[in-house]
């Protein structure tokens, strides 16, 4: 029998992260994100194992995502992928195995969302936000062997879901 409980330390980290996460959500949507210059390794955020850029954009292959108006074809492709590869653990408005996902594209940068899909193992080990999510949800997010193009389609689907739910929010129990 394995029991995992958030320890006091984790709770402190969680509280800190709530602050950081708050900063993330202040990101202006629509504004193209600034790419991290290749090879330019910024200093680590004090007390954490990530740089400022990693904190904001996540750890992974995605450096810059240009967002345009919703692309319906991409949304449809993302929805099909979501059914096979994601929905066994994620709902839009309720916590399930993983966190509820509606509005995640407003709380996080698009790069963060895609890096979380593409590189969950490293995110969960190093990124304080992902670590906090693991502490809250217990099950490590599996890598689902997505291509970058597939992750982009999923991002579009999540953007569409965020828009759909604008009028009807509040069911979310916590924010990823």
């Amino acid at each position: 029998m394995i029991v995992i409980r958030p320890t006091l330390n984790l709770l402190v980290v969680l509280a800190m992260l709530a602050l950081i996460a708050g900063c993330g959500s202040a990101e202006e949507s629509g504004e193209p994100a600034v790419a991290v210059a290749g090879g330019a390794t910024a200093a680590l955020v004090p007390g954490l194992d990530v740089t400022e850029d990693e904190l904001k954009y996540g750890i992974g292959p995605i450096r810059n995502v240009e967002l345009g108006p919703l692309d319906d074809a991409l949304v449809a492709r993302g929805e099909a992928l979501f059914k096979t590869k994601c929905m066994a653990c994620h709902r839009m408005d309720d916590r399930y195995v993983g966190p509820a996902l509606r509005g995640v594209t407003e709380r996080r940068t698009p790069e963060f969302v895609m890096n979380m899909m593409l590189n969950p193992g490293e995110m969960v080990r190093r990124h304080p936000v992902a670590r906090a999510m693991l502490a809250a949800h217990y099950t490590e997010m599996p890598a689902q062997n997505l291509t970058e193009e597939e992750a982009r389609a999923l991002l579009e689907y999540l953007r569409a879901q965020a828009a759909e739910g604008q009028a009807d929010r509040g069911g979310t129990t916590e924010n990823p």
Partner: protein
Amino acid sequence: MARKIPRPFVLGLVAGAATAVFAYACRTTGPKGVLDGDVASRVYVAPGEHDEFYAFLSGGFSGQVTVYGLPSGRLLKVVPVFSQHAENGWGYSEETKPMLETSFGFVPWDDAHHPQLSKTNGVADGRWLFINANNTPRIARISLETFETEEIIEIPQSAGNHASPFVTPNSEYVVASTRFSVPVPQRDISVADYKAAFKGTISFIRANVPGQMDIAFQLVVPGYNYDLAHAGKGPSYGWAFFTTYNTEQANTLLEINASQRDKDFVAAVNWRRAEECVAQGRGRDVPVTYAHNYMGETRVARSELKRGVRVLEPADCDGVIYYLPTPKSPHGVDVDPSGEYIVAGGKLATVIPVHSFSKMLAAIEAKDFEGEADGIPVLRYDAVLAGEVQNPGLGPLHTEFDGKGYAYTSAFLSSEIVKWKLGTWEVVDRIPTYYSIGHLMIPGGDSEKPWGKYVIALNKITKDRYLPTGPELVHAAQLIDISGERMRLLLDFPTLGEPHYAQALPADLIKDKVVRVYDIQRNRNPYATLSEADARVERTGGTVHVYMTAIRSHFSPDIIEGIRVGDTVKFHVTNLEQDWDVPHGFAAMGVQNAELLIMPGETKTLTWVPKQPGVYPFYCTDFCSALHQEMQGYVRVSPAGANVVLTSNGAGQSRVLASGGGR
């Protein structure tokens, strides 16, 4: 029944044994062999490092193949082939059961002897591994991308498929033959009619297109025992060589009665000549049936019974087969990397005869025959002989080559490997093995380009080599360094079943193309559940299909009700994971076959016929995550005729497509 044991034979054996004991006593090395100070470093593969070679060892009577790393001797995998494997559901799951179908029906076990790597231009190419089933004659093809058995073909008109599945230089064919001659065609007759009615067959099976293995043709040959084989290469490309023993055609107490003659034969078969004859319509089609089982892109095996095979008699096709007299009850037949020398291990012989391919062709040209055996020309021994290795050890069996001009022959009775030089035939080194070596294997050692760094001895008997484990002891392999002038024993390692023969190749040829997950978007199993949204149960008459998904760390559905005693339940479990090394297991209480291990992206089906009402837990058996122990569910089983509604908590629509069951 009187059993006559010829006195000269017994005397010979006694003398031989005495020589062996003497040779043993006079060795300068103790039972640990020649162990130098740096031996440990030669086989040490540091934690996290990879081995240099993949070695594929047959499991013998286990029916499976084992994969080891060399030089460490670490066991990497057991590949189920001919035997049911409850550990992962091979031969129990609905997707894999057809792989073990034969014309005799479902056969859950066999005896697997000779792994053979597929070849291109005479060199192992890392595509497939073939292996034979001795008992119910079959040949399997294992993918070296998935390390799974993908195809099995049965060999009709055969028995004791031992000289198999040796491959031709471009894997055009794998071969098969009869260790046990049998009535051809099979029929109910007395064994007393052996000489008149029992025949051998030599089969060539097309092997170079997955899914299309097929018997190209069979050659009917005299009723001897056909023992081992190797294809020609280089100048001898187009030929294949088979040893025979029991040319006496004994059918009882063979250990005496089949050891009478001084020489038996190596059969040289010209398979390109056979192709010509078949193309000309010679021979006849015989309406025998045999199974062909294939797991293709769908990963759902299909078994079909094929009918008809083209059979050639030697008289139908002149020049297709010749016999080379070879002392005495030869076992292995091995062709050197140049393709010129054909080495036969006469297991009761006092020399190793080496035939010359070019002399054989000249003798055929000159019709230099000493006679005929059942219409097959027998060449003169002296006309085809290249040389004899003197004092090769007692009971020489098999020979492999290092690509540097040396041959290595295993000697069963004297438990040693003898190294000798091609061309001069002189013995240059010998090393004891522990004990009773059968085959030996140098990576690529039966190909045109051996990677001649190690030889492994495949030993039948271990006696005192390991901690005792009751009457049954492990068999073992011994790794021996052959990079220098003298052979050096490096390592013993125990093996699974009987490591009868083996093959090995550099890991770099395979490791980067190994499949890590099955793409869930290409899952074509008709019972796949590709989204948790579709997880459900459906009743069709007395059968209930459970469409179940698995992902860390839950099944969906995990509550099922409405099953009745008398129903057949089919759990179709789809693993939605797409990450390497995350299989899920599935087992349910009281299920009378096995568990399932479901690899990422695939669907496997387990059938269950519950016999008593109750609530049955099921769970994941393959530790998958921190919450693995939470990965479980329940199935409620009601009495026959109960009217509990069929339901599940899967998100898909559960329904009754056709009522029934429950009696």
